[in-house]
């Protein structure tokens, strides 16, 4: 089983990297991009014998306690 954790800057936090990418896309004349937010993606390979409910709890805990700084970032994840 794999967990994909997506970490992005909070909406209230300025994201200069995302802005730079957005400006670059406009300069390159890509159409229709209103905004870009840059984040990180983590792929966690979990033990095969881990029950789904436990996996969900543990990944949520890892994302909250380690992978994100709650002052500036938020996260979402999916298991597959």
């Amino acid at each position, binding site marked *: 089983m794999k967990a994909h954790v997506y970490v992005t800057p909070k909406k209230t*936090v*300025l994201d*200069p*990297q995302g802005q730079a990418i957005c400006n670059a896309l406009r300069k390159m004349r890509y159409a229709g991009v209103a905004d870009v937010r840059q984040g990180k993606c983590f792929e966690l390979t979990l033990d095969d014998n881990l029950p789904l409910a436990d996996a969900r709890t543990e990944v949520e805990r890892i994302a909250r306690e*380690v992978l994100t*700084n709650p*002052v*500036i970032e938020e996260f979402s994840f999916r298991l597959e």
Partner: protein
Amino acid sequence: MKFGVLVFPGSNCDHDTQHVLAEIAQQPAVFLWHDSPDLQGCDAILVPGGFAYGDYLRTGAIARFSPVMQSVKKFAADGGLVLGICNGFQILCEAGLLPGALLRNAGLQYICKQVYLRAETTDSPFTHNLDRGQVLKMPIGHMEGNYFCDESTLAELKKADRVAFRYVSAEGEATREANPNGSLDNIAGILNESRNVLGMMPHPDRSSEALLGSSDGFKIFASLVEALAHRS
């Protein structure tokens, strides 16, 4: 009186900081390796600049889980004096010893230059030797020095006189041009609620001898030494 300078894999201002304490301030100063929780009876802890644990994940994010940081948290909770410089400031924020976080510089570039700071409070063991409004010249060298916190935290910092330093012009004005990295409200350094923990992005360790272009940074170390002398 004994000072402890933390050393993480990737710290690179540990020797600069220890040099200032041992050679300029003439105080006993030992290195404390990250892997041991033993603070060796030190009376003040310095968290130096560098790239602790390679700054992987986020600056200071891995360092906060190290054995030595668990002891530093307890030391600070008991009123011990802790000064975090540059990466040390980032680590103290990640560890929850100081509020807020340090984001990527607004200009997205690593900045290494001399800046001017204004001492905003003299009410701390680190700044009591300064004059309020005094302008200090110190270098910065960072990629993530853009101080950020939410509105209520900023209001609390201002109300409780916990902003220690702001980036200013040579004349002492906190202008947009004088803000090198986009920090909220030109903030360059802050104190914790009990005023025994200071974090700052500029380097007093690199500005404690005239030979380096400024000795203004030494005033912070001198304040710290004097504060400790009064405590013992």
